[in-house]
């Protein structure tokens, strides 16, 4: 059975536009990883905002020394920190939006942000 006579020129356009919409939605939601941006702050001020897609190592100078942040495989961690208790280093890999590691002695914080800012606490 032939269907071509049922489709008018504009129908093909709508069909193509629909296909593009589906493809771009898939790209946006599936290939643009959930937590995509990394925000590094020093002393409460923005030091660097960067994508998680490109592996790199960042040195953040603080009052005690250098905090080293590593980005790899769409996640990030504090590789080394001069702080005495190493809490932010032990935090390990951060991969989802809202996760954060804070190196308080060296005044450096590392946080992953997503499209939507999710809650960090809820009260009832």
């Amino acid at each position, binding site marked *: 059975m032939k*269907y071509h*006579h*049922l*489709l*008018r*020129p*504009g*129908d093909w*356009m*709508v*069909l193509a536009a*629909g*296909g593009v*919409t*589906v493809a771009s*939605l*898939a790209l946006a*939601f*599936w290939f643009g990883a*959930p937590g995509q941006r990394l925000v590094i702050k020093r002393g409460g001020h923005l030091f660097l905002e960067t994508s998680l897609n490109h592996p790199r190592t960042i040195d953040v100078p603080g009052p005690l020394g250098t905090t080293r942040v590593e980005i790899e495989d769409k996640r990030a961690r504090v590789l080394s920190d001069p702080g005495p208790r190493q809490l932010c280093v032990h935090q390990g890999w951060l991969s989802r939006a809202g996760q954060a590691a804070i190196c308080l002695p060296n005044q450096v914080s590392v946080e992953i942000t*997503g*499209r*939507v800012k*999710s809650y960090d606490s809820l009260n009832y």
Partner: protein
Amino acid sequence: MTASTIKLNASPEDHRIARMAALAIGLTLMEAALPSPLPGVKPGLANIVTLLVLKQHGMRTAAWVSALRVVAGSLLLGSFLTPGFFLSAGGAMASLAVLWLAQRLPEQLFGAVSLSILAAFAHIAGQMAIVYFWLIPTSGVLYLTPVFAAAALVFGLVNGLVAAHLLATPLPATVSEEPA
């Protein structure tokens, strides 16, 4: 004591709305029996009826048929005033709004298939909006958006082809002008 009778005068349009709504409700019930891999992914066969009515009798009748289908269909399925009912009502309203706009497109260029695909996308957009802003406000639901959009494209195309075919060769039993 005289028997009192209440007489409702049903116009031919009322008959037409009732008949087409019955058809749409029948399709909705049939469809509810079909297994679906993912809740919310349905062919939406009743939209074929909405399209036919829109093309043949205009927006007003189509809106009536669609509204009756949503309300009566949910009563029969036992989902009246459940989240599912609001999802289907929201989807129906969104797609009616888009159909209202899309019917102004030049008819020799954009046929029933265009209307069907646009309505299907509007339907899913309306439903996602309700899910996201009211029922499940987490971004996890949005993760499924591409699946729903793909389903809207496929079923929109199929329903549109069916509607275009029926419009090209009207079936006297379903789309006749006068009640039998």
